């Protein structure tokens, strides 16, 4: 995953204080959703609303990826008729949304989390099981 200059510098300079893992929320079934519960370890670093907003946006993006609608049906039927060879040249809808998610996470890291000594890891790198939040030691990173 591409990291910006500031993130790389921060990772090299700061030590990891703790890691928090935001678990999956299964109340709506097997759809990919994450819990919006605010972990207590991050209370001193970031605003609760801000964090919940991030997770909620991610949940919406994943819901968009897995939506059962006419687009997914058409894509499925077309793929089946071509014995799934169409995916050699075309990207699936899910992959397109995953790219959007990766961009969003990077944007959030750059604008909001890195200045506060936090780093969000894209859930796809953890098997869509958890959102890993790395909390760096608070040195000279405060405003």
């Amino acid at each position: 995953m591409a990291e910006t200059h500031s993130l790389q510098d921060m990772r090299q300079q700061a030590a990891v204080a703790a890691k928090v893992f935001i678990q999956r929320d299964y109340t709506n079934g097997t759809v990919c959703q994450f819990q919006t519960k605010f972990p207590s370890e991050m209370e001193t670093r970031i605003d609760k609303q801000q964090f919940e907003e991030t997770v909620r946006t991610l949940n919406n993006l994943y819901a968009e990826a897995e939506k059962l609608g006419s687009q997914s049906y058409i894509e499925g039927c077309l793929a089946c008729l071509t014995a799934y060879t169409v995916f050699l040249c075309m990207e699936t809808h899910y992959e397109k949304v995953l790219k959007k998610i990766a961009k969003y996470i990077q944007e959030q890291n750059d604008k909001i989390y890195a200045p506060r000594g936090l780093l969000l890891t894209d859930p796809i790198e953890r098997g869509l099981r958890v959102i890993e939040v790395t909390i760096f030691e608070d040195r000279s990173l405060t405003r």
Partner: protein
Amino acid sequence: MSAVMITRKVRKWEKLPGKNTFCCDGRVMMARQKGVFYLTLFLIVGTCSLFFAFECPYLALHLSPAIPVFAVLLFLFVIAMLLRTSFSDPGVLPRALPEEATFIEMEIEAANGNVPAGQRPPPRIRNVQINNQIVKLKYCYTCKIFRPPRASHCSICDNCVDRFDHHCPWVGNCVGKRNYRYFYLFTMSLSLLTIYIFTFDIVHVVMRSVDKGFLNTLKETPGTVLEVLVCFFTLWSVVGLTGFHTYLISLNQTTNEDIKGSWSGKNRVQNPYSHKNIIKNCCEVLCGPTYPSVLDRRGLMEEDSSISATPVAPSSSSSTTSSSNPVPQTTKTTAPLIPNEHTPDDAKPSIAASAEKSPSPKEEHPPAKVPPLASPETDVETSITKDKTH
């Protein structure tokens, strides 16, 4: 005496734990035992070749040239679906990295509270409510995660697979969330192909016997007998299997859940994943979104290997054939925090030996002459009833 540290870039598939074999630099992913898969391939290709060689010329002339054309299309579709099922990632869940495993451990200990010495700690289960049903999530000791709903650990491949259906030796891979629809299309198209070849074999024999007599026909096209035999025995199993999976799809169940009786009446827990509508269930399973693989098989990672002065047999460097090298892996698996209850019985995986060996799966499987179609996960007490799957 002197050791040189060399950092090389390797593909991630080379360091993946689990008992899979990888080909084409990580593009292809299969189970370790592939013998039965080769048999499947041989039977399909062999029978179709005989059909194209013996029956098709006659039928194209005397009936219609569309017959062999349709047979070719159907054959290509069957092979495409088979290869797609066999070579793709079924939905393997990557194991927890050490920090995540520790985090979960701490959560479990906090939840359990103080266990008096001498007493067994309570089982690691998390209850979640899905669509107003309580579903229990079990903890996987091998992968160090709480398994998502419908996921299961395959003992043959040593991976947790999402929406685990069963491990199919005939396709040489697990059937899970990502390749279930290909598996279903494979069984369905194979049923059609078998019926097609069987029907036209009979038609061919009848037509030719009218001209030349039954025995002469068999002498001229000896392949027919073989084809009819293969098709006859395949028909019962494959058509039955297709019917069984159609039933499962209409109810949005997996083979694993069906065998364990997760949603059948006694427990009074209804299937929380079913839309209660056959069409909706079918659409979700067959036409739903195509899930991406969360295993980054072809990603690059750094590997540190030290080359000492004394010559040593080549060990930690990547083996190009498979990822399951016996050398302890430094990246993913670390010393287990808790005793590993589900370590496989075989001590040293010998890849060459197992690939050549007969296709019977190892470890906890009831000895059967024909490899079972569905294999249970490690911690299930019920045994498979083969009749059920046929």
